């Protein structure tokens, strides 16, 4: 069901999406701090603006006015390029997450997603893999040993988790018979949410997503107690903000992907079609809450333990899930 949109509509959509995700990122950060505060028997930011809701703005203003600092031993070009890479890959990902079906504006039919790619899932993976390069290069280019170690850990983490994550969602793709996220949601609307038939895949996906976004307990690349701030050590001001933004936007995109693949995406009862994106938003927030909850609760793994966990636990589980799904799909659902 391809919809032809005029170019100006696409531009508006792209602008709107990018704007929304960047705004939401700021508030996700605020909510994280507020929630962490609650988890830790304190208030969290509640002074700036109404109960603290101007805090992100204050943070951004402060970071903008910081000196744009490049350490002497740094590779200047890569040092500047790295955060751009990270954020570009993170924000691009949001284009593929479907927020709804179609709507009509000024007589033009339009889709409630950035774009519906036939290889949507793959693109998202490529983007998140590419985003890691931002961190690795940033760490390497900083000319700092902590940053270098952080970058090395990022690389180790990337190879340990990308594979398991990729395998964990192949089950979904096999059931839905499509790589397009819109098709996957539609398939779930016609049957059940895939968390029901892919519980193991979902579990592996969630764990790998936490690792993918460098969140506790897998926040080794920026383990502040060991590596000061890992690849971020030498970054300050706006570039630091951009890296933080990339991390949170990644969280949002991966939450969106998880919600789309396993929780039915924008599918949900009661709401009219043009408000269906609220369902996706609610599901994304469930994921984000989980991320924050984990951060408040768990200690950090050691980096060899993390790799062992990735290769020896997650990968076999994902593979098992894949094989079982393949057999079941092959035997029972051999349609046409």
């Amino acid at each position, binding site marked *: 069901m391809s919809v032809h949109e005029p170019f100006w509509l696409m531009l508006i959509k792209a602008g709107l999406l990018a704007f929304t995700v960047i705004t939401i990122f700021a508030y996700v950060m605020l909510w994280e701090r507020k929630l*962490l505060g609650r*988890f*830790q*028997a*304190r208030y969290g930011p509640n002074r700036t603006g109404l109960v603290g809701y101007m805090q992100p703005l204050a943070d951004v203003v402060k970071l903008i006015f910081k000196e744009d600092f490049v350490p002497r*031993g740094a590779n200047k070009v890569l040092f500047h390029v790295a955060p751009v890479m990270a954020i570009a890959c993170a924000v691009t990902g949001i284009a593929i997450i479907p927020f709804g079906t179609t709507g009509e504006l000024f007589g033009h039919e339009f889709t409630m997603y950035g774009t519906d790619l036939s290889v949507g899932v793959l693109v998202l993976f490529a983007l998140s893999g590419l985003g890691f390069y931002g961190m690795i290069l940033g760490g390497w280019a900083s000319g700092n*040993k*902590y940053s270098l*170690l952080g970058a*090395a850990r990022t690389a180790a983490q990337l190879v340990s988790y990308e594979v398991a994550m990729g395998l964990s969602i192949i089950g979904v793709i096999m059931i839905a018979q499509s790589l397009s996220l819109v098709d996957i949601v539609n398939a779930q609307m016609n049957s059940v949410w895939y968390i029901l038939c892919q519980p193991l895949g979902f579990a592996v996906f969630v764990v790998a997503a936490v690792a993918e976004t460098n969140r*506790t*307990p897998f*926040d*080794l690349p920026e*383990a*502040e*107690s*060991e590596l*000061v701030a890992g690849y971020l050590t030498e970054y300050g001001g706006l570039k630091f903000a951009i890296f933080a933004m990339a991390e949170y936007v990644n969280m949002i995109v991966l939450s969106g992907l998880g919600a789309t693949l396993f929780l039915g995406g924008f599918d949900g009862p009661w709401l009219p079609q043009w408000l269906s994106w609220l369902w996706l938003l609610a599901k994304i927030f469930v994921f984000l809450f989980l991320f924050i909850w984990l*951060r*408040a*609760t*768990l*200690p*950090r*793994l*050691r*980096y*060899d*333990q993390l790799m062992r966990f990735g290769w020896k636990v997650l990968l076999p589980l994902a593979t098992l899930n894949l094989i079982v799904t393949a057999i079941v799909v092959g035997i029972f659902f051999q349609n046409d």
Partner: protein
Amino acid sequence: MSNVDLGRDTSLPHQELPETERIVREVEARTPAEAAARTAEHERRAAEDPVGARDPLVLNMGPHHPSTHGVLRLVTELDGEVVRDIHPVIGYLHTGIEKQCENKTFWQAITLVTRMDYLSPFFNTHAYTQSVEKLLSLDVPPRAQWIRVMLSELNRITSHLVWLGTSGLELGAISVMFYTFRERDRALDLFEMIAGERMNTRYFQVGGCAEDIPPGFEDLLRRFVDEMPSRIDEYEGLLRANPIWVERTKGIGILPAEQLIDLGVTGPPLRAAGVDLDLRKARPYSGYEHFDFSVPLGTQGDAYDRFLVRMAEMRQSVRIIEQCLDGMPEGPSIVDDRKVVLPPRGELATSMESLIHHFKLVTEGFTVPEGEAYSAVESPRGEIGCYVASDGGPKPLRVHMRDASFVNLQALRPMARGALLSDMVAMIGSLDNVMGGVDR
């Protein structure tokens, strides 16, 4: 003879620098160009003979590093993330307290020693006042002893709470700290109530305690003690069976008990290795023989055992405080010796003799007979001992602390060799060094 004769004996044989000094100087002396040349040279050698030719990555951790507990500096030689060797450099928090004590009267020095190991002020003052009391041959009245025990154990709880919170932070468990500090704050309120200060409490006095217990204190302390066991359960619930916590601490930082004894390690790190050495039992002081408590021992001596030992010690401290509250003897809280102890405030208006004593004590201080004494107490970190020498005057000739943090820190190097960088951080946490105590 030149003009600048510093009186140094130049006939001394040339002394080899200690290894730490040598490596630190070597690393610091390198210019970027030299460092690059060295790296190139090693790369060339590594290309010819890859085995064992790799130059370690020298990483300077600290003194400003989030996990070095203050200002510990570790010059770390890394091979990948494996620590080949570390060279601890200390002294960044050196405040010359021991030397300053020599310029203060005996009772002014109490204020200084509280600042050494800033997490256990009661233990510092306890060790110091005990030594001075030994020199003066004073017998501390039982009520004062009981109060000392009570506050020491409360201090042990607060110190362990800080340890639990910070070592949790080091392993990435960020929330535990807020819970432990919540309880610690209540204990500090109690300190404030009894001693007037929250952290550097100058409360133990030569001969007893500065004041008697204020009204209402016992109720608050009892409420705190009643609540504490459930709080400790809470912390343990978060960590004890947490697979990540267990995996991060089990098998980390093990040294054989003999080696720990050789290094002079005391306190929880030693007891975690199964050595039953607790001064409260081994050489009871301040009436500890009257209390019923047990000394928790570990079996493996790893960071996890140290965690368990400290948690159990907190529970034992709660028990001791309860016994203190139940069996608090009546009587004076300080000896009645007007040559050493300030007379009660009320007497100053009526008794000329008291006024003279007060004046003499405040302006000149009390004199301590010539001699030297050492006495030690069991602090949260191990044996804190204080050596005091007197020449018969009102000021100490020498005050020296045997601080457990300083001695225990020695164990870090043999532990950390061959471990991963992340594990070294866990080891630093599990040794619980306070740099104020190390550097003094």
